[in-house]
């Protein structure tokens, strides 16, 4: 599964994109956040306020309870500030 990080999530994780094997215990986007946050200090810092983080699956906005399938691209980013 491809994971992408933008803005300060990219900076804090030190990663713009990576490919991971989804553990069997991780079913939803919210569970993926918890799993990533447990990886190391940078990830913990990036995800320290999960309620502020926006999630996109296959480039569509989803909520934390979105159930992930094995083939998806998941992206994490802060609230958007375009325009």
């Amino acid at each position, binding site marked *: 599964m491809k994971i992408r990080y*933008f803005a300060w999530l990219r900076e804090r994780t030190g990663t713009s994109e990576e490919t991971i094997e989804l553990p069997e215990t991780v079913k939803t986007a919210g569970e993926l956040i918890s799993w990533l946050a447990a990886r190391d200090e940078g990830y913990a810092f990036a995800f320290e306020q999960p309620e502020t983080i926006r999630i*996109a699956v296959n*480039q569509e906005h989803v909520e934390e309870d979105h159930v992930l399938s094995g083939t998806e691209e998941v992206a994490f*980013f*802060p609230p958007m*500030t*375009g*325009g």
Partner: protein
Amino acid sequence: MSNSTTTEFTVRVQAEDFDVLAETEILTKGRKDVGAIVTFTGLCRDEGGTLEALELEHYPGMAEAQISKFAQQAVERWPLTGLTIIHRFGKIPPGDNIVLVIATSSHRRAAFEASDFLMDFLKTQAPFWKKEHLKETSEGTWVEAKAVDDADAARWRNSRH
């Protein structure tokens, strides 16, 4: 002229600047059914002289897809004759263009409302993030999302249209 065909729109996400006049002419040239043109141009402000540049990061692919989704909503909701949306990314100095929305219609309220609607959704729903680089400090700061922008976007949910 027919309601059965939806108006086409143009969406571009690009590093290069845009030309408001040229983009406007594409929507009006050779046609005489356009009664109203509303253009919105968003520019980089210098924040009282403190800003060196804005850096705009985006999610390639999703940015175009999200803008196109809202453009499609706009052409279905308002009787537009044309619609163009261009959003830049990369490093943008004060005074330079960031975003352009042009809506044309036979009627002024449609052109005003569609462009206003699109800007509200570009602000809150399109995957772009602004980082401010100030003149005095070497490190940039991510611009925080504003509650007022969410409130602006929420206006369109309960609208009479």
